[in-house]
Structures are given as C-alpha cells and as structure tokens.
C-alpha cells in the first residue's frame, strides 16, 4: 500500500532533471549540500535524472530541466538541443551555464593553439569548440548566477519555475549588498574588486570573507557608469580590470551574435 501511494504521489509531482556539461559539478554539489532540507525539496518534486547521485534514467518529457556547465564541443551542443526539445522549462545554473564562467578564458586563445598546448600533436582527437554559455545555444527560461550558486537562490528560482512565475535578479552591483554587510571597501584596502560592475544576489559572499569579487555573477546591465567613476577615483589601469573580467565574463563577447 505504502509503495502504491508513494508511486501515485510521485506521478503527480513535477518531473525535474539535472544535467551537466563542461563544469566542475560544484553547483550540483551545492544542491546535495542542502542537507536534510534536500529531502523537503525532494518531497515536492520528482527528480528523474541527477547524474551526480543517481543511476536512474527517464525517457519522457521533463517539466523542468536544470542545466549546469558550458557548451564546449559539438556533441554537447546536440545533447543540449535534445534536452531543450524535451523540456517545458529550462533553468541555467552556475556561471559556466549562465555566462561561460572560467571556461570562457579558453576563448582568449587561438583554439588550435590552446588545444595543442594541452594535448600535444594528438589534439585533434578531442573535439573542442569556443566556449558558449547555454543561452547562446538554446532558449533559457530562468538563470541562477554564481560560481558556485548560492543555494537559497536556486530554491527560490525552482519555486518560481514550478509556479510559472517570473524571477528577476535586481540590477544592482554587489557593492549594494557589501555596504549593508559593513565590509571595508577593497579599494580602500588597496585592491581592485569587481563588485561595482557585478550583479548582486550573492550577499557579497567573497568580500564578507576577506576576498575580492571576481565577477562570477555577470555584469550589471550598464556597467560603464560605475566603471568611469571607480576607474577615475582609484586611477586603475583598464587592462587590469579587463583581465580580471575575462576570468568569468569572456563569453559576453559572444552575446552580440545571439538574436534573442
């Protein structure tokens, strides 16, 4: 009886699948790290695929597909397109999926040159295309920024996605949260930080811990306003800031080619 009931309950719950492409899988781990709260999440959804911890496979359509990682080869592109075709809602989570993240640094090099530098003369054995975030390949309905994601935000986005509500990230820089957390500004400590240009929502996680912001959540909509003021006041070299941005945001240069 118990099994039949649970089967009926499972049938009524939305089918959610987690997928990963080129990434470190740390965002999946953040989900696993929800601890016992994970069981509450699992109580309202039916996770049908989650490679990190499950061997089960599913062959029908997904209500929600949650995508981690960047697209860096042709096989991945095809696989992603197939997943999109089977999914009612698609969520891109983590920097690799939303903005290309650290994988984007590859795009600063000539593709064959960097492939050869790692794999030597046999580099052609390993297919590799310029790094693209998910939205440069298929339509994305929701995004969860960050490297890694901030778990409470994923839960919020999942709630919105399951109810069909919009989720918007406030277009404020990390500084807006950093000030509320009463951190000493990294610029006042003599170090340049990407907080003024990076989307908030992480509760200034890194600066709270004495580090700088590396820009992992992507840029605010109009970064140039803040840029001029900060670059001027602290006499920064633009190439230094550009190099810092390239650690996570190099793929932004590909956005102009996407007509969405």
């Amino acid at each position, binding site marked *: 009886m118990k*099994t039949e009931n649970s089967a009926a309950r499972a049938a009524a719950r939305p089918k959610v699948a987690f997928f*990963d*492409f*080129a*990434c*470190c*899988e*740390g*965002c*999946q*781990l*953040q989900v*696993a*790290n929800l*601890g*016992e709260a*994970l*069981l509450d999440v*699992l109580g309202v959804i039916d*996770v049908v695929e989650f*490679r*990190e*911890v*499950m*061997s*089960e496979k599913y062959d029908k359509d997904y209500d929600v597909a949650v995508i981690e990682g960047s697209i*860096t*080869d042709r096989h*991945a592109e095809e696989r992603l397109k197939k997943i999109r075709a089977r999914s009612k809602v698609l969520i891109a989570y983590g920097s690799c999926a939303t903005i290309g*993240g*650290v*994988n984007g*640094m*590859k795009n*600063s*090099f000539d593709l064959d040159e*960097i*492939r050869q*530098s*790692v*794999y030597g003369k*046999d580099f052609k*054995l*390993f*297919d*590799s295309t310029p790094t693209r975030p998910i939205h440069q390949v298929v339509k994305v309905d929701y995004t969860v920024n960050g*490297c*890694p994601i901030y778990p409470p935000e994923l839960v919020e986005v999942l709630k919105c996605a399951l109810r069909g509500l919009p989720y918007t990230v406030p277009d404020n820089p990390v500084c807006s949260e950093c000030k509320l957390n009463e951190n000493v500004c990294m610029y006042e*400590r*003599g*170090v*340049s930080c990407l907080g003024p240009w990076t989307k908030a929502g992480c509760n200034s*996680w*890194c600066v709270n*811990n*004495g*580090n700088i912001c*590396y820009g992992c959540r992507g840029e605010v909509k109009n970064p140039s306003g803040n840029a001029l003021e900060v670059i001027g006041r602290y006499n920064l070299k633009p190439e230094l800031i550009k190099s*810092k941005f390239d*650690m996570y945001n190099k793929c932004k240069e590909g956005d102009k080619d996407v007509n969405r």
Partner: protein
Amino acid sequence: MSTAKNLDLKVEYVTRVEGHGNIVVNVKDGKIEKCEFHVVESPRLFEGMLRGRSIFEAQHITSRICGICSCGHSLASIQAAEEALGVVPSAQTIKLRKLLLDYEFLDSHILHVYLLAAPDILGVPSFVPLIETHNGVVRRALRMKKAVNDVCDILVGRHVHPITAIVGGFTKLPRPREIDTQLRILEGMAGDMAETLKLANALKFPDFNRETEYVALVSDDGEYPLLEGDIGSTDGKRFARKDYKKATNEFIDPRSSAKFTRLSRESFFVGALARFNLNSAKLHARAKAAAKELGLKPVCHNPFLNTVAQVVEIVHCYHHALELLRDIKKNCLDYGQEVTVGANEKGTVPVRAGSGVGAVEVPRGILYHNYQTDAAGLIKHADCIIPTNQNINNIEYDFAKLLPEIITLPKEAIRLRLEMLVRAYDPCISCSAHYLDVEFVD
C-alpha cells in the same frame, strides 16, 4: 552454455573533470579478446587557460577544476605557487590547511561511502529508493554531510570553492566563537560516527585480490601525511615532490588516447587504500581501532576495500580535526596573520621567475600541480595530474584479472561487479554513477 560465452560490453560515460571514459570488454567463446578502460581528457583546457594569468589567481581558477575536491585543488595550487614564489607559510597557516584537508576528506568520503557505495551493496540504483527503505541512514548521511559542510563554511567561507585560503595564508581567520562552533558541530557528530562504523561493519565486499604498487605521500615524522611529504610506494620508491614526474611517468598507450601512469610495474594505485597500506602505523589511535574492527590490514590488495579504507580515514580525520581545533582553541590564533588578496597588483609580494610543485593527498589520491612563472609572476606553463588519471591504468589491470574470475556469473552480475570495482576507486562522484549504458551481446 554460459561458461563459454560471448560478451560484448560497452560502458560509456559523459565528460567529467578527469575526462570521459569507456569500458570495452570483448569475450569470444569464453576467451577474453579485449578488456580495456579508456579515458579521454575533457576539453576544458585548464592548463592552457592558466597561461598569462597571475600566479596569485591560480588557486581561484584551479579550484574550479573540481567542485568535489575544490579545497584539495586549492591546497595543491597554493603549495605550488608558494614554492615558485619562495613564500614560506607560517606554522599557524599549515595547521589550518591541515584542518581544511581533514574537512575535505570527511565530506568526500562520507558522500562516497553512503551515497555511492552503499546503494550497490544494498542492491538499489541510487540513494533515492533508500529514502523510503532506509530513511534513517539517508538522513544520517545528509546530516553528516551538512555538518562537515557547515564547519568548512566557517573555516574558509564556503566548501565548494573555498574563499579565504590563498597564497600566503587566509584572508579571514575564524574568530574564537567560530572555533567553538566548529568544535560543537564536530562533537555533535560523535553518535553518527559510531553508527557509520556499524554500517561499514555490516557491508559485504567482493573477495578479489591483485597485487599492485601503492603510491602515497610518505614522511619521516609521526603524522599521517596528507598535506606534506615525499612521494613513496610499497615497492620502496621515494621521491621529493619536485621529482613528481619520475613518480608518474605519463605515457600514451597506442590503444587509447588517455595519458596513463606507472612507476615500478605495469600500474599503480592511489587513494585511501594506498595511504592506508603505506601509513597505517601513523593513523590516529581511534582509526587504528576502527581498522582492526573492520578487519583491514596492510598490505591489503583488494581494491573493493578502498571504501573500507575511506571509513578508516573518516575516523582518522574526524579525530585529527577535533585535536587541531582543541589545540587552536587553547593557543588562540594570531589574527595579525590575515593576508590581503589581489593579483599582487601593488607588488606587495616579491615575484620572481620560478617553478613550483604541489603534491597533496586529496580524497582520491595524490594530486599534483606544477607552475612555471616569468619574472612578472605570470604563469608560463601549468601541469596538473589528477588522482583518477593515475588510477585508470590500475583499474584496467584489475579488470583483466577480475573478468575471468566472474565470467560464469549472470551478465547483470558481471556488469554490477565491474561497475562496483570502478566505484570502489571513487573515480569522481558522477562518473561512478554513470556506468549505465552497458550493452551485452551473447
């Protein structure tokens, strides 16, 4: 008949940190024609992308190689960078790094033992069906993972991609109240630790033995070496970490596009069982007692018992971490040692052209990072050798011995046994859950 069978077995898994790999097994009229394990490096090109970046950014970037052992990558990266720069970390910094490594081992091993290895032994495809049948065990696993995650958050800001651990030390040191919180959380795990040992005692592992070489960090002092040491082996080899290439000897096998490693014989093993086989005399007394209770003795040649060695290390790291925390609480931290981050843009740390090697034990075995920098402190060349890649060759030789021993079993049992063997190496969490698309033709 089933004994003289034909078996065409292909197992494929998708790109991972260590690349993606295939198992190819071919049996014709009972004769094994092919039994190979191929790994293809994933196309992320970290070593290439590091070129031109500041050596001070290497930790942040290489941490992103793997979310599961991001703390281990950070520590290996920092060790290599500090050696290249000539930075010598303080005794306090080393103590805290050892604590961080204990947390990393606890987190990773708990995940593997409970969520990956146990379902095999209980005969289910994942931990999800266990939520109904073994709810208490699943809750315990998630509770323990959360506890370790919480102490790690307090120590370095975040377990997945640590924030405060950088070249030179820590950007923020835990305050006395936070040391107390870590102690309280760990002490609260005592009951779950005892239950974990009970669970491990109840697990039954396949009987299989193959003599091979075990490689792990070794040292001359009495501490179980995880963060620092020379590279040693059960065949009597010993190298300083700067000579790591002599211990790995990467080579291309014409059958496969993967880089393999070897030392004194055809293959070697890295990971919990290797560390246990080389250093069991240095384990914490409670871990030695656990090993005795679980019947694990060096030198153990059964790769399936790597999971048992992980349980022994869970006990070791738990008690080692408690002792470190009590010592830190007693002696207090020097908060003047907090360091400021930055890509050294103000030139506060002298840079030089140099080279450095990091060799750190991470949950799956020795991890090597090697950087060469120019006079401006920019990376010219980077090399990372990941534990799973070192084990691939050994897994393949295990297959070759295991398959004839189990060839009379039903095909599902063969598949499960081969998958279990791969999982025992804990190659990378998702890889091991991905040995699915197995096709049999017989």
